[in-house]
């Protein structure tokens, strides 16, 4: 078996597993065009065995492997939240101020890690560019790619379109959102 085939099979396994945990079909997940980028992101952030580990973990066990939560968030919002951040409700508030330079919306003492405020939120953390695994450092949340934002499942889940992208057409706002049977 060639290396290429192996990678392709692993990618397919990742998408199959992601369909189970996100509630969207494999068709929808491939349809985002982000499958490869997300697969690479998980591998680079959590190590080459991380995906196999979560796939073979017992779904009945709670709490689940924290990487599962990271993967779900990744598909929904296109942002990688490391397992240590994925469950925190305050982290989302950190991502916007990091960009705009505005004051964080949460108190300083809830800062998830010392590196977070200093490091850029996106750009240098493209899939495959410098993983956290092995380095021991904590990676701040980052947007995987410009397309990851527009392809987030959350938009389809709420029947909306990403602001500033995928325009639905002049006057379409007069209609109810397109409801999908997900």
């Amino acid at each position, binding site marked *: 078996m060639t290396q290429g085939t192996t990678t392709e099979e692993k990618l397919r396994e990742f998408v199959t597993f992601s369909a189970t945990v996100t509630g969207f079909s494999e*068709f929808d997940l491939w*349809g985002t*065009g982000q499958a490869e980028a997300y697969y690479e992101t998980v591998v680079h952030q959590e190590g080459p065995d991380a995906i196999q580990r979560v796939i073979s973990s017992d779904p009945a066990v709670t709490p689940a492997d924290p990487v599962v939560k990271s993967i779900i968030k990744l598909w929904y919002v296109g942002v990688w939240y490391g397992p240590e951040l994925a469950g925190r409700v305050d982290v989302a508030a950190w991502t916007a101020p990091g960009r705009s330079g505005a004051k964080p919306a949460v108190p300083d003492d809830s800062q998830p890690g010392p590196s977070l405020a200093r490091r850029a939120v996106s750009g240098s953390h493209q899939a495959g560019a410098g993983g956290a695994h092995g380095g021991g450092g904590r990676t701040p949340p980052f947007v995987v790619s410009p397309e990851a934002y527009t392809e987030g499942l959350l938009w389809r889940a709420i029947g909306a379109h990403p602001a500033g992208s995928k*325009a*639905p057409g002049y*006057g379409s706002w007069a209609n109810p959102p397109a409801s999908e049977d997900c």
Partner: protein
Amino acid sequence: MSVPASEPSQGSRIQTIDELHEYLYKGLQLEHATLPPYLTALYSLQPGKNADAWHVIRVVAVEEMLHLTLVANVMNAVGGTPDLTKPDFVPNYPTHLPCGPDYFKVHLRPFSREALDTFLKIEKPAQAAGEEDRFVPMDWAAVGLTADGAAPTQEKLAELTESASVLGLVPGEPTQRFLSIGEFYEEIIRGVNHLEDQARRAGTTIFTGDPARQVTPEYFYSGGGDVIKVTGRDTAVAALTLVAEQGEGLYGGIFDSQDEIAHYYRFQQLEKGRYYQKGDDPGEPSGPDLHVDWGAVYPVKPDIKLADLAGDPHILAAAKEFNRSYATFLTSLNLAYNGQPALLLKAVWEMFRIRDSMNRLIRNPLTGHPGANAGPTFEL
């Protein structure tokens, strides 16, 4: 294509208003037939990686939609009834277009050098050297649509002339075809002039259509040329001329009369890796560099059919759903072209949803065909 508005002595094969309507229907079929190939190539580009190619193909596709609307306006102006919902309106790809002595196939396929070569052929039709070269006997063997190249049976011929799978046949005389699509439009312009001259001598006009059926600029926004309201000979010729020259440029120049770069030269920029700028000669763009990443493309299975999707039930379901929504879209568009132009605004929303559905299909790898991705089949 040079299309002088008033050269009275040129013969016209179009002798009746019904024949003109038939030609214009074929024009609608032709303009539409370019869209699925352009859209398939456009959405095969991986997001974020081929911005130059994306913009070039997108502009051309949008202008083909303008052409469809312009032909519909001419049809309505001369009392015709556009019908985009006939069973054979959409070709079973590949479709065939004439180009000089040969026919060439137009496939649904991903962006590639071969696809670009086809696009260049679509947009620069050969021009006849003289009157006698404008029509060519139909060579069915060359098109390969009949067994062993024999002339089709009457039944098969009727089917082929109705369908959009062989374009450029002479309506009413399918043993002949036009040398090129440029000559096809030339014939329509001659027909308009001939019939209108005849009508005026009798104190009437062929422009009897209800002006309320015209799609006017307030219903059409695209940024790629203006829609023309057709109310008489001048506007009809202007609309048909725009259709022809947006493809290949005014009198073969880089720019058309609305100062837009002609489609042929837009595509040539991708081939040459450089943009045109004002003052350039054809074939020698001297503008900024343009980058094409030929590899950053989803490998859509060429001329994909529903039958190819048996092994992928989810994709099959989505492809069927796409075909249904495309048929619905054509129905909306048809209503817009038949007296309810305001419905064009609603058709735009449908277009955006169609775009999203196409993207999803194209990004899905097939399990039954390793290395190939799905795509819209356009089997309506």
